[in-house]
């Protein structure tokens, strides 16, 4: 099955009548196989809503999500999700967290162990295999969360502000790690962030979203060669351009928030 994701006229309305909020309004985009796509926008435009729709958690009000031409109706391990809050199972140690998906898929124990060994080593977790999540730093936890979905080798990775809670240095390390994994395994990645710099550093393509109703404001391709130098002229030119777009939406969000509108 192709790992191309098609978002076709996706709309999502929360609530009914006067209090109805349009989180997504007729969004269409095609994410080709192997593309690293960042969804960039301020808080409150429903970026998690769109990602959850692609993951199969949230049904759309109208429109359709298709993967490899087939409509998405439910969550599945072919679209591995990494959550901002890690969502590791605290009662399982690192190894068991990584193995869990393989257990679910009924992979024989010996084969699963081979996969776990490989993935754990790839993410530099070999020394932490028997630790429980509570004994790991935020960066380590997010490595485990990435390892957990990589174990199932999903063609698509969905990442909901995965590095949002990490300090700047850990964040950069994990961004590099993610790029390395992405180029090695050639996944399709949809990555939600509100950090302009993160989007430019990572993405092949950036969709700038508007605040409520959520629409695509700008669809642009980042063709700076990797590894990207965040201090370079072209990087900062792009950063300035995106900042203008994003801040306009952030101001709409802020004034809406001051007037008491609900936030996602």
């Amino acid at each position, binding site marked *: 099955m192709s790992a191309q994701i098609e978002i076709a006229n996706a709309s999502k309305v929360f609530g009914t009548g006067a209090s109805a909020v349009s989180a997504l309004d007729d969004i269409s985009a095609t994410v080709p196989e192997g593309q690293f796509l960042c969804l960039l926008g301020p808080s409150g435009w429903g970026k998690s809503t769109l990602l959850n729709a692609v*993951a199969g*958690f949230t049904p759309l009000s109208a429109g359709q999500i298709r993967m490899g031409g087939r409509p998405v109706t439910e*969550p*599945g*391990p072919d*679209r*591995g*999700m990494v*959550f901002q*809050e890690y*969502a*590791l*199972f*605290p*009662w*399982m*140690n690192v190894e068991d967290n990584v193995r*869990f*998906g393989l*257990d*679910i*898929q009924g992979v024989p124990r010996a084969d699963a162990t081979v996969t776990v060994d490989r993935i754990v080593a790839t993410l530099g977790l070999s020394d932490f295999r028997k630790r*429980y*999540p*509570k004994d790991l730093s935020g960066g380590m936890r997010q490595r485990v969360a990435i390892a*957990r*979905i990589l174990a*199932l080798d999903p063609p698509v990775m969905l990442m909901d502000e995965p590095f949002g809670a990490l300090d700047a240095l850990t964040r950069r390390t994990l961004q590099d790690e993610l790029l390395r994994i992405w180029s090695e395994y050639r996944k399709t990645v949809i990555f939600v962030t509100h950090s302009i710099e993160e989007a430019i550093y990572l993405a092949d393509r950036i969709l700038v979203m508007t605040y409520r109703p959520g629409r695509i404001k700008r669809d642009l391709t980042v063709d700076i060669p990797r590894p990207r130098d965040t201090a370079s002229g072209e990087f900062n030119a792009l950063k300035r351009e995106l900042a203008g777009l994003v801040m306009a939406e952030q101001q709409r969000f802020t004034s809406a928030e001051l007037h008491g509108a609900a936030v996602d």
Partner: protein
Amino acid sequence: MHRLRGAIVPLALLVLWEILSRAGVFSPIVLPPPSAVAVKWYSGLLPGLPYDPATESYWHWVFSGEMPHDAIASLGRVIMGFCVGAGLAVPAGLLLGTSDRLYGLFNPLLQILRPIPPIAYIPLAIVWFGLGNPPALFLIALGTFFPVLVNTIAGVRQVDSIYIRAARNLGANSWTMFRRVILPAASPFVLAGMRIGIGTAFIVVIVAEMIAVSDGLGYRILEAREYMWSDKIIGGMLTIGILGLIIDGAMSRLNDHLLRWHRGLER
């Protein structure tokens, strides 16, 4: 040093009590001196007959004293009643916690029954089960049932939806979800309920033994009252305290081991 400091107050009280008792301030029936209690307690601990390898094994003889016999009887009742009560409460709680419909049906009844102390069931327990072990076990099981049930329901209902979403994303079916996500996520609550439950069971066993049976620590201190043996009453209370401490300590060790992954146990 800190441990020693903690012993100052109890020791001072014991000395004061001993002095006042010996000085004849209280009659030995009202408050016997601690030394008398200790002697009585120790004599209850020892086997009544000399060891005879021909008739019994060594360990059987060691525990043949009146107090070990009573302590084992009480502990046996607590464990049996607890197993029955928790054994019914955990599955029931998992069911009510998972199904909103069942919860809606049974929760009002539960809220009415829950505040009735198990002790209030004593008359009914005797009417239903007569005297002897059955009413005692019924009361202990009842005392265990509600705390475990209520905690299990709460544990299942509060499972963080992020774990459910993560497991669904990995393709978990309902059975895997239940067994490997909901059950472990609820386990801190279930174990907390069990700890409360065994505490209640221990209170109930003493009361039940005062009424329905003819051995056990509860029976023994009531029997001692018939003869005004206050030293034996206090000695029995001491044993009850020690036994309770051992049970709670064991539960707490078990908790620490089973919940070694839990954030709340970070030290």
